[in-house]
């Protein structure tokens, strides 16, 4: 679950950066909140793929940054891009990534129980 923990930290960073860069909108606060929410929900066993929903808040941040009129972005917008790209990268990593995938674990367990019978 290390990827989810890092996503939560990036969400917290987005919220802190709202005050650090003194941005006028609330996009970073809202996106940060959703990132924390989706990453936290992924800890629930039945919702362990919720981290894939990060595509929505990060997509919004990327849209805001790349639709900005000038090519040279202010710091807070560059922060949007970097935070969004990092969250998207971590979102690719499955929960319990260091273990076998669940279908494999279930399959091997079934094979084992069948061979015992």
């Amino acid at each position, binding site marked *: 679950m290390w*990827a989810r923990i890092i996503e939560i930290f990036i969400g917290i960073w987005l919220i802190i950066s709202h005050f650090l860069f003194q941005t006028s909108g609330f996009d970073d606060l809202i996106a940060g909140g959703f990132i924390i929410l989706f990453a936290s929900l992924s800890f629930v066993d039945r919702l362990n793929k919720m981290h894939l929903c990060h595509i929505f808040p990060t997509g919004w941040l990327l849209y805001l*940054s*790349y639709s*900005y009129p000038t*090519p*040279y*972005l202010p*710091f807070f*917008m*560059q922060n949007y*891009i*970097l935070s969004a*790209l*990092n969250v998207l*990268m*971590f979102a*690719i*990593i*499955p929960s319990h*990534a*260091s*273990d*076998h*995938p669940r*279908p*494999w*674990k279930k*399959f*091997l*367990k079934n*094979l*084992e129980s069948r061979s015992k019978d």
Partner: protein
Amino acid sequence: MASLPPSSPRPWDYNPSSWSQRLRIAAIAMIAVVIALYLGFYQWRLIPTVWDPIFGDGTKNVLDSEVSHQITGWIRLPDAILGVFAYVSDIVFALAGSERRWQDRPWLVILFGIDVIPLGIVSIILVVLQGIAVKFWCFLCLITALVSLILIVLAYDEVISSCIYLIEIKKRGSWKTLWLAFWGYPSLVALEAGEATLQKRKRKK
């Protein structure tokens, strides 16, 4: 057999998915992250100058060049910071997955391979082109290109093992089985293909 034990797949006599192999890749990529971050800090003007023991102002000239500004305009970030992101992704994809990920998550190994090998080659070509297009050389950029080259050498073994495993599946099953196995879904065919990837190497001994 409630889990797949870490084993050495063909054609290697070691496990390319072992933690020792992958931690080594992450540690080397970390060197490039630090260098690229340092160069990015200069492009953000968070530091006034940049160190270059060989080419003098070469690094500064490369980082302040028209080409660099043009790339910044396209990607909306300083190019060195994009480099930081690329090397961090190498670390993240190196650290994710089990010690048998060449079999249980081939998609992750292939993604890691795409991240390290073709993108690494592109970054090396771009750094070499600096000398031709910008007419200046950047010592630290050359170091990061060398790191990319080392990462390619260290990462290709795992990708090859995953490809051999996927080929073994295709020999035994349909495209659908291959597709499902690629995304980490098991089947008897996938299990057999994994064993075959190990067994043939054992037979050679």
